[in-house]
């Protein structure tokens, strides 16, 4: 079948007369912008905002991006503190309490950049029931299970996302115990209302590497089901789409809700579930 690609290349048989040259398209308004990443939730004990900057793409070194450590960042006009880590700013939940249903304004400025602003309204909690199937064997050492999500407030439009980890505690002969965590990969991670059929959505075939050894104990699955705002969904959806991009397809336009900047300021409420692995 690879031959077809060869044959398709006959499209360019006239390209024997073609040539390539470097072009310089001026983008006079494209100056570096502040890039924000922040996902706030009542579920977290602090608010974290990561700030970096964009750089021109053409005539630049691949992957060149920088954190911004000299920014002033405010949420609802309350300043955030700078963390030691590059580009991270934070406020404890006691300073800024994140509550469902409330709107939060983010503002930031840094020398040499336009001031940015963004807002998010924290979604109200929409109870969702999560059911886990029994864990079954698959090929090799893998096992798998299914999850079924039940939307218990079908009249309320919602966006949601699911995350999960498997956790094992290994007991060494010395008596030392060490806990390992592995991410779970779901057949679908981001949802909007249209994904629920009759208020139900089944996630089938979630893989689990189960260590049967007696040396492992306290095996668990932790699930977090997030009710997110629209920005959270759209931002992650563009990331998901760009990761599976076909070279012949239209480019993915990244979602951003940051005025004068790039990135995302979003919010969610979380439902946590833990299942024991037999």
């Amino acid at each position: 079948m690879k031959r077809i690609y060869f044959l398709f290349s006959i499209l360019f048989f006239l390209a024997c007369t073609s040539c390539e040259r470097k072009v310089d398209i001026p983008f006079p308004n494209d100056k570096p912008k502040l890039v924000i990443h922040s996902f706030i939730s009542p579920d977290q004990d602090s608010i974290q905002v990561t700030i970096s900057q964009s750089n021109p793409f053409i005539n630049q070194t691949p992957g060149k991006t920088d954190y911004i450590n000299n920014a002033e960042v405010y949420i609802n006009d309350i300043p955030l503190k700078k963390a030691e880590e590059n580009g991270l700013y934070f406020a404890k939940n006691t300073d800024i309490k994140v509550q469902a249903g409330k709107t939060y304004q983010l503002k930031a400025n840094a020398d040499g950049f336009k001031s940015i602003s963004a807002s998010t309204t924290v979604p109200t909690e929409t109870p969702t029931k999560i059911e886990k199937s029994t864990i079954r064997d698959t090929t090799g050492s893998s096992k798998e299970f299914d999850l079924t999500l039940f939307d218990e407030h079908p009249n309320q439009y919602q966006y949601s996302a699911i995350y999960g980890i498997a956790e094992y505690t290994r007991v060494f002969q010395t008596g030392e115990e060490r806990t390992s965590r592995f991410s779970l990969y779901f057949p679908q991670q981001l949802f909007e209302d249209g994904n629920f059929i009759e208020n139900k959505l089944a996630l089938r075939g979630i893989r689990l590497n189960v260590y049967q050894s007696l040396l492992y104990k306290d095996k668990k699955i932790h699930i977090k089901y997030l009710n997110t705002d629209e920005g959270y969904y759209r931002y992650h959806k563009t990331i998901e789409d760009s990761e599976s991009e076909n070279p012949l397809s239209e480019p993915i336009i990244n979602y951003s809700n940051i005025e004068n900047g790039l990135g995302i300021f979003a919010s969610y409420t979380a439902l946590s579930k833990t299942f024991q692995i037999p």
Partner: protein
Amino acid sequence: MKYFLTLFCLFSALSTFAQQTISGYIKDSTTEELLPGATVFIKDSQNGTVTNKYGFYSLTFTKENPILIIQYIGYKPIIQEIERKTQTKDFYLEIQGGEIEGVVIDVGKEDIIETPQMSKIQVEIEDIKNTPALLGEKDVLKTLQLMPGVQSGSEGQSGFYVRGGGPDQNLIILDEAPVYNASHLFGFFSLFNGDALKSVDLIKGGFPARYGGRLSSVVDMTAKDGSRDHLTGSAKVGILSTSGVLEGPISKKKKNNSFMLSGRRTYADIFTRILSKSQSDGQESAGYYFYDFIAKGNYDINENNRVYLSGYFGRDNIGYKFKDNEDNEKVKFGWGNATGTARWNHVFSPKLFSNASIIFSHYDFGIEFKEDYNDKKYQLKYTSGIEDIGFKYDLDFFPNSNHAVRAGLQTTRHHFKPKARAELDSSLGVDSKETETYISLENAVYAEDDWAISNRFKANLGLRLSHYIEDEVNYARLEPRISLAYKANETTSVKASYSEMNQYIHLLSNTGASLPTDLWVPSTDVVKPQFSRQFAAGFAKTLKDEAYQVTLEGYHKTMENIIGYKEGSSLVNFNTIEDGGSSSNDWQKTITPGNGTSYGAELLIKKIEGKLHGWTGYTWSKTEHQFDELNHGQPFSPKFDRRNDLSIVGFYDIADNKTLMATFVYGTGQAISLQRAQYKKIKHNPFFKNQRDPYTSTTIDFGTKNSSRMEAYHRLDVSYRFEKEKRKGRKAWEFGVYNIYNRGNPFFYYVDEDKDKYVLKNASLFHLLPSISWSYQFK
């Protein structure tokens, strides 16, 4: 239908009171080719008519023994007194000037002042033959791209964009049959050989009610009927192809019949096969060719009945073979159109003309792969296509000198085959077949009236009812069509039009080029019909005793339910085909509906007389699309949104047998999504420290969709033709240079790394390309 005809006849009988009607055909005096669009006027009056598509006219008058003036561009006018009792009369026009008798048919132009029709361009066949072309291949659709309001796509492509509409929104018809993929060689050449055509009309707005089914334009082409007098023809040999036309009477006895045959074939495959064999020790052979063929015949049963049969068949083929001791592999990749039309013209009375047509159109694209490897067999066949069979009935009714009424009905059965796949694998024991088909019915009834409200004020009022059924889906839409013209004086008229159009079938093509893999698909309960409203206004003026024609038009068009492709989706996915298809190949999930708006102004200045003649077309336009699922719901410019578009076409007759021809085109660069910036992309994950997924990477900011522009497109082509009279005909040599100043126009952009930095590079096709062709026109 009986009631319909009875009503017409009754109306006809009543209206004949105290009036006299003359009707007949206007023909070329030598070949008897029927001349559509010829004018028949009564001298010193505003009373006149124009021949229909079949060369038929009907003129009602009250004057005693009027003097008729019959005119057609390129022909000597006839001025003749008619006795009042005359009811039917055919007129034979003689070609004016030094053309070879019976060979060149100049279809000329409609009178732009008198007609209420606006936004219409009649392309002269001579202009198609004279316009410099890529590799000397004269191309109807590329000549259309030189008209205002019509824009080309990428470099060298024959697909075109009319008033903000996509190539899928153009209805291209040849002898009433729609042609679904009107290009050869991945869009670089159009299907139509200008030598075989009699007329080409392009309508961009103010659509008469007889046309429907597409949003943005109608290209109505009619093939030559063929000479009824003697056998004649032409042959042409060029760099890429050889073509020929043969026409003449089927039987000379009665002069009531004729035929026309036209064919073209490329021959690059002859050389590529030799080359590939020599480079692979005879193991491999690869080649590409295309051909097309038009055949037409007609026969007059009697003076009131005439039948036509015409057909088009064309195909592109790519072949590859590999053979050694163990492996025998064959790959075929081909696509093509076939159309057929059977027509019957019947004259009920001098005032009532009818045409009944049975129309067939087929397009298919296929890949076939066969491999025998150590006695194991593998075969894969994939095809897609569309096939139409339809019936059309039209009546032209001329009740009096102030009205020309047309009415008719049309029904078409579309058989869509987006995917048919068969796989045989002897080693795995696979023998599977899978076919996806849709059948739909598209119907329409229409009526329109060319109404001379007064000597100065004319209108074309029409209504079309279109109807579509697919499975349990049923759509019915009324489409009003209004064109108005006010003749301010003998050289100036002001015009306005309004039209609504519906499109029930859609073309899936997200590559921007006219690829054979593009799929025609039906409207369904999920994919709604496309709809447009267009308002246009402008004026037409002739200058210097009609040596110059100037038209200026402005338009505003809105489009609903147009098709877009979801970001990240692609229809071109051979792996999916090979892997047996998947849900990602479900075309209804790949597309998304949206709206569009386009507005602009178009200026056309034509110089139609003198040694130097030609035209200049300029368009200023702005087109914007809005899709809920694209660009995050924000409006954006489609690729073909082009603010400025200029074409200058000139023909200079150095002598009777020497002509210098030149074309200059300029267009604003294509709208494109370019890499504007790079930044860190952080994914959220509530299980990780600081809520950050540790696998961060760099992402690209494209800005908003299509927010960048490629460089402007421009080029100059020139050609020179030298003709020499011979005993049995006339031979001609033509030398041309495409893109004479070697401009590297953008075909596509890509990002490359140069010295550890990203750089943007332009790949261009068709730099300076010379061509030469030889042709012979038989007497």
